[in-house]
């Protein structure tokens, strides 16, 4: 919209492209550390092997998830639900405690944007160089730098897409398929899809996603209270702002500590001015803190003109770290995590379903015995093979016979045909029978199964 000369519009200028300036300092190091750890986990995890399985593998066709040596079955989906609840609660907890920590340090949007910015710096140089390069006419140098950046971005994005698919398909097989150009159509699609999304989000959309698209950014304010840690400019100390030469004390010129160098604006990935107060665009990356501290050091003023603080502290009230809201979030979170861990460590790695064969009612055998036929589906969720025995809970009530030994390899499912025989005079009509399936080598692994046994309705009469 360069022809923005319509009346009433001339007051507004086009939103400038944001060229975040690189910043060094405590929080920048923390952010870099978070980036290396999180991206490192993402790219390395699928290549590790634990207990003979890929460290993290969501095997969708096989309907099981391998996560750090644990195997999760569809029946364990309750843990996934609990995990999501715990993740949501910890977001509440940390937001109430320290504001948008998630946004600034851990959100994939931030982390991948950092990585893409890093590649941009390698190829196109620092902030001023990037601005100049974009403004300059096309030249061999510009073409070279731009294509080098695109090459890095695209390569990294495709590798990201490949790694993503590697969480769902064994990554070593996937790599072999890539090398032999025999990647399946869906694997190709998802690699390009996720790679393309990474490229667009981290290369171009960047903090616009946070400003316009992220729901968390919209409602996180509801979790704030006056004791929440926020990044804030100390207005009472900084104002009136104004430039001055180095070494001049603020009071000599009747100014506050802010030298109005606008570096806090230049480092901001969302392009806001933190000095205008807390804004919903702020993703709390703390870049402005680092850069302002450096300026304060240069000027030989105390650090912390922009700092992590709380609304209460800025108003000279006492800040309460421990407060009811945090205690409630924290307690629920702790209970949830402990409960989940306890339940996960004590779960029985066995599941069984007994389904009556629908094609037959029952069979009468010599000796006044009635036989019912069932399909027994056993899932051995353990890491070792087991042989099971199926017996009535009350010994002698019924005879149970399976077509073949109930032996299952580690992490496998198998179906067996099972016959249950009961004497004709054990009852009339549908009878409930409790069976127990137990591992022969580990008595702790046992499961009760309820069976419905059909017997002739009135004893003596034939059906």
């Amino acid at each position, binding site marked *: 919209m360069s022809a923005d000369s319509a009346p009433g*519009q001339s007051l507004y*200028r086009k939103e400038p492209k944001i060229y975040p*300036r690189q910043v060094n300092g405590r929080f920048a190091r923390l952010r870099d550390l978070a980036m290396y750890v999180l991206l490192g986990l993402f790219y390395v995890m699928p290549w590790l092997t634990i207990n003979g399985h890929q460290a993290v593998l969501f095997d969708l066709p096989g309907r099981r998830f391998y996560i750090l040596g644990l195997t999760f079955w569809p029946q364990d989906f309750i843990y996934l639900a609990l995990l999501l609840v715990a993740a949501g609660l910890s977001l509440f907890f940390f937001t109430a405690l320290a504001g948008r920590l998630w946004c600034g340090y851990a959100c994939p949007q931030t982390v991948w944007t950092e990585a893409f910015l890093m590649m941009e710096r390698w190829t196109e140089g620092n902030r001023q160089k990037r601005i100049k390069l974009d403004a300059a006419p096309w030249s061999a140098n510009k073409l070279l730098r731009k294509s080098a950046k695109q090459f890095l971005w695209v390569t990294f994005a495709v590798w990201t897409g490949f790694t993503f698919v590697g969480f769902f398909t064994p990554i070593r097989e996937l790599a072999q398929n890539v090398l032999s150009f025999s990647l399946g159509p869906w694997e190709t699609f998802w690699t390009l899809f996720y790679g393309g999304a990474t490229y667009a989000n981290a290369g171009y959309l960047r903090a616009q996603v946070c400003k*316009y698209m992220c*729901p968390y950014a919209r409602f996180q304010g509801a979790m704030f209270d006056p004791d929440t840690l926020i990044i804030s400019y100390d207005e009472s100390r900084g104002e009136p702002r104004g430039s001055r030469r180095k070494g001049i004390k603020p009071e000599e010129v009747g100014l506050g500590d802010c030298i109005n*160098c*606008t570096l806090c*604006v230049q480092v901001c990935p969302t*392009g806001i001015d933190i000095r205008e107060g807390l804004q919903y665009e702020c993703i709390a990356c703390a870049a402005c803190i680092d850069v302002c501290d450096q300026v304060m050091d240069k000027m030989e003023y105390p650090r912390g003109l922009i700092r992590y603080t709380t609304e209460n502290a800025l108003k000279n009230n006492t800040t309460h770290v421990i407060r009811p809201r945090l205690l409630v979030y924290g307690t629920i979170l702790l209970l949830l995590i402990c409960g989940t861990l306890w339940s996960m460590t004590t779960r029985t790695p066995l599941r069984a379903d007994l389904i009556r064969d629908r094609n037959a009612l029952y069979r009468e055998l010599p000796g006044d015995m009635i036989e019912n036929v069932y399909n027994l589906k056993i899932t051995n969720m353990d890491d070792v093979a087991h042989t099971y025995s199926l017996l009535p809970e009350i010994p002698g009530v019924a005879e149970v016979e399976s077509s073949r030994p109930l032996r299952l390899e580690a992490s496998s499912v198998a179906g067996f045909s099972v016959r249950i025989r009961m004497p004709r005079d054990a009852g009339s009509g549908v009878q409930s029978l409790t069976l127990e399936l137990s591992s022969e080598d580990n008595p702790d692994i046992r499961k009760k199964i309820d069976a419905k046994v059909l017997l002739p309705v009135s004893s003596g009469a034939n059906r």
Partner: protein
Amino acid sequence: MASGQDTVSLRWNERRRDIGIIIWISFLSACAGTFVIFALLDPDALNQAWVLPWEMGRKLAYSLGFLFLFCVAAIASSLTTFMIRTGPRRGHHTGKGRKPAPQIKPDAAEDPEFGIDPGEWR
């Protein structure tokens, strides 16, 4: 029909309109989704693959499927409404109702008044 002085009876306020639209559109989407899913999929077949320990009849599967789709559509619609209602207003991209972008000082080399060279902290 409680109406204050400033409200016209039978005219809905914004919140009511939003909720009405969310529910109605989610319902229509869920209907369409249920048709398509269960035209292609016999819920009885689900019983073999079903992970929960009780048998699910056809009627229950149809109802649960519909309610599930209704919920998902309603969540999506509600969040969308929330994002649009709390987001920037119409004309935001042309600068309407938006504060101008913060001013940035030129580099020290171009501004001798400014005491320190920001290039030092690249």
